[in-house]
């Protein structure tokens, strides 16, 4: 377990992790850090010692849905916040959890389905497809996934993920 966060210095160190994540993803993801004291409701609710990292589902509208869909992110044990390398490990871990559990609106389809979708959506939406090789690292970029939830784009655009498309469709 990491040491308990109860000093101003530790708050700054945690703050720096959150600031780094916000600098990377802040254009489209809300990231926050909550410091609680012993009397805080949130601390009593989870009956856990700080630091407690929780991931709340994006897109959930009610407090109940947010609470029920949230879970604790288990961080690698033995990390010391004052060590820069440990902070980097923690930050990467939080980032990975966020990426893996983010709810997007990208439909993974085959090329055939994409083409048939052209007819289906042609009069309703703009279709945006991210095409890539099966071997490409990381799959669909997080930015693309987040775009599928963009409030401005949601009504007019449909997002697709197409693996190994033929050359003719790339050429289009």
């Amino acid at each position, binding site marked *: 377990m990491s040491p308990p966060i109860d000093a*101003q210095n530790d*708050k*700054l160190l945690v*703050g720096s992790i959150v600031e780094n994540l916000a600098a990377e993803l802040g*254009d*489209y993801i809300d990231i926050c*850090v909550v*410091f609680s*004291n012993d*009397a805080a409701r949130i601390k009593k609710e989870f009956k856990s010692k700080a630091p407690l990292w929780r991931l709340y589902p994006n897109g959930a509208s009610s407090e109940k849905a947010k609470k029920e869909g949230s879970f604790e992110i288990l961080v690698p044990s033995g990390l010391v916040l004052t060590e820069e390398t440990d902070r980097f490990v923690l930050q990467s871990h939080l980032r990975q959890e966020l990426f893996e559990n983010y709810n997007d609106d990208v439909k993974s389809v085959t090329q055939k389905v994409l083409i048939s979708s*052209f007819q289906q*959506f*042609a*009069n*309703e*939406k*703009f279709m*945006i497809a*991210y095409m890539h090789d099966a071997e490409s690292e990381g799959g669909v*970029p997080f*930015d*693309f996934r*987040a*775009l599928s939830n*963009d409030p*401005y*784009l949601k009504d*007019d*655009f449909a997002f697709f993920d197409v693996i190994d498309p033929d050359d003719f469709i790339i050429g*289009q």
Partner: protein
Amino acid sequence: MKASEDEPNIRFFNFNGLKEVHYKEVQQTMINMVPELSERYRADLVQDSSTHLASKEKRSFGEIKNTKDFKSMCQSRKACAIALLPSITVIDYEAENHARRLEVLEKIEEQAAAALTPVHYSWINTTCHPEVFSYFDVDPNFVPTVVFINTAKNTHGSMIG
């Protein structure tokens, strides 16, 4: 691209040579494809910036009575100073002291506004809200005091003495 009465055939738009997806870049391109969307986006931008400017310019000294006040008078500012004052008004000399403290604070707020200092002043009645002592790590024996909060860095400190 979406078919329309003017363009009944499906049209293709290619992000030529785009190796990485950058959120803002792609978002702007997509928004510009839809004139109504583009108009709405620009209108929102104008409204956001005018709201931001209005909240930036509007300064007022006052009592923080609830979370909403705290947000508008402190959290939405770059920095703020909150006086923690016990407000006992049933004893005459205490009431006079309280009124004098408020006068001093109001003057400081006016000076800060004139000098365009980013610190916004306000006060909390600690008799009604003793919970603020634990929020700001202040010993109740040290009031009246002033807590300075840097909202950008999420740090605070209080005056001693």
